[in-house]
């Protein structure tokens, strides 16, 4: 932790949580998106609807799930539907306001790669693949992306277009007949980015406390654009920070508790 009293990762999660509103219906990816969505739910947006692709609608987990299908999600959901129904009625049906995604590789137009590093047929690294993301990216009304910055992750050219963002920028989405907004927000551990209204290139609009332009550029693989009027992200409030830390502590305890007994189990088995 820095002298600021919070980590960059905490700032990222909390900044992301602030972007969510009580009437949002979020299709939640695992990891940072899941933490952000649940912090929003536990602070300023208690009415927010969280949906995980396992079919759980309106879920309110007490601890963060390790997978998108943990039992906790079903236990606390308003209803749990089949996976085909999830993708047909709820995602494709246009009922998701925010699709919240992470990325292995991201370019400046919000295109995402989670499929391969290297050539598809002969990959250097075979990643898990798209899962729900290709259709989340085009059927959600808008897309928020959150990831920690690195030159390996934020690249000039992604190796594979798993999920379409703004393509080559400009009106590329419209030209493909995609009528949803696409990526409208990128929240990293250093800054808040929004697409330029015309070019759709992600532009830094707010630096997190203590972060410099140089730091942002050093950890990004493309030449960073900054908004003319650059803001500073408000620090996490005590409530936000405490909520996030409590959530993480509950989650760690739950997973660790299981881990201990499970090790015993797997030695038995």
């Amino acid at each position, binding site marked *: 932790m820095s002298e600021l009293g919070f980590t960059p990762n905490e700032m990222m999660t909390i900044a992301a949580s602030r972007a969510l509103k009580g009437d949002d219906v979020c299709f939640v990816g*695992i990891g940072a998106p899941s933490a952000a969505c649940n912090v929003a739910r536990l602070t300023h947006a208690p009415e927010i609807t969280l949906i995980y692709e*396992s*079919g759980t609608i309106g879920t309110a987990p007490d601890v963060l*799930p*390790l*997978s*998108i*299908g*943990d*039992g906790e999600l*079903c236990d606390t959901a308003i209803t*749990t*539907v*089949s*996976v*085909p129904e999830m*993708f*047909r009625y709820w*995602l*494709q049906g246009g009922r998701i306001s925010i699709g919240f995604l992470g990325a292995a590789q991201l370019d400046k137009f919000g295109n995402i790669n989670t*499929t391969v590093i290297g050539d*598809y*047929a002969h*990959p*250097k*690294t*075979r*990643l*898990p*693949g*798209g*899962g*729900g*993301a*290709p*259709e989340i*990216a*085009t*059927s959600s009304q808008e897309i928020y992306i959150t990831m920690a910055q690195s030159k390996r992750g934020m690249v000039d050219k992604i190796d594979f*277009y*798993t999920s*379409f963002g703004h*393509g080559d920028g400009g009106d*590329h*989405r419209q030209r*493909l*007949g*995609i009528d949803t907004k696409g990526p409208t927000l990128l929240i990293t551990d250093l800054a808040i980015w929004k697409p330029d209204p015309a070019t759709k290139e992600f532009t830094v609009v707010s630096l997190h406390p203590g972060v410099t332009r140089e730091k942002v550029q050093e950890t990004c693989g493309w030449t960073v654009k900054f908004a003319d009027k650059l803001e500073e992200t408000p620090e996490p409030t005590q409530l936000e920070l405490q909520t996030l830390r409590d959530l993480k502590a509950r989650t760690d305890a739950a*997973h660790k508790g*299981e*881990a*201990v*007994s*499970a*090790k*015993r*189990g*797997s030695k*038995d*088995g």
Partner: protein
Amino acid sequence: MTKFLPLSKAVADNLNNGDTVAFEGFTHLIPTAAAHEAIRQGFKDLTLVRMTPDLIYDQMIGMGMARKAIFSYAGNPGVGLLRRLRDAVENGFPHALEIEEHSHAAMANAYEAGAAGLPCAIFRGYRGAELARVNPNIKSVTCPFTGEVLAAVPSVRPDVTFIHAQKANKRGDVLVEGIIGIQKEAALAARRAVVTVEEVVDNFDDLHPNLTVLPNWSVTAISVVPGGAHPSYAHGYYIRDNASYLEWDEIAADRDRFREWMQKNVIEKTADDFSARVEHLRNVA
């Protein structure tokens, strides 16, 4: 009409070398015991279908049983990569693996179409996504009313699907509840459906009328294997063994350690060993 069989016989009767097979389960209710039985029986040349091939397909691929994998997310959920699958794709070890990769939406629709007896599914998908370039089984159809171009994928029709479910009644009807995932579609899409269950109960008289029940005449065989989803979970019976998923990441990272683990934990075990593996996960379910 279904038959109650020991798992070894249910697998031997219904799986063949060269089959297209789905061991389905969307995080919840993964049919691990059935997959391990298939590993013990040493099938070859399988086409493995699953939305989320996780540990069990990593294991089957690592054991050299798969010719091809059809999937939409080849990760260890919440943990990372599947290292045996990676080794097969990146290095052809233990042998080359053909892959047919889709999105979840495509696979979900393909199973749904399979259950519905259709040759293909159409949906609004893959727009701007590069999978459509590398997978020749992603095509398109044009809506005859609006002219909109929609994605089309072939339906999934496995020779046999294995699923795990909470319970059967004595007639052989099967109940799936909680995160129901793609279980019903996967079972109905297949020529043969084999179900492992936690237990058999007298009847389903007190069930809510709208639950997911597979009537006995839609199920080929049922095997009672308590704990058979471990390290996945069975809603109402035992919780997910997250630690085993974390542990798998280390086991699968090394070819020798993998073989050794498989020998000890799969080859030398039977379906009866699953029950003990979930004992400590039961009281918290």
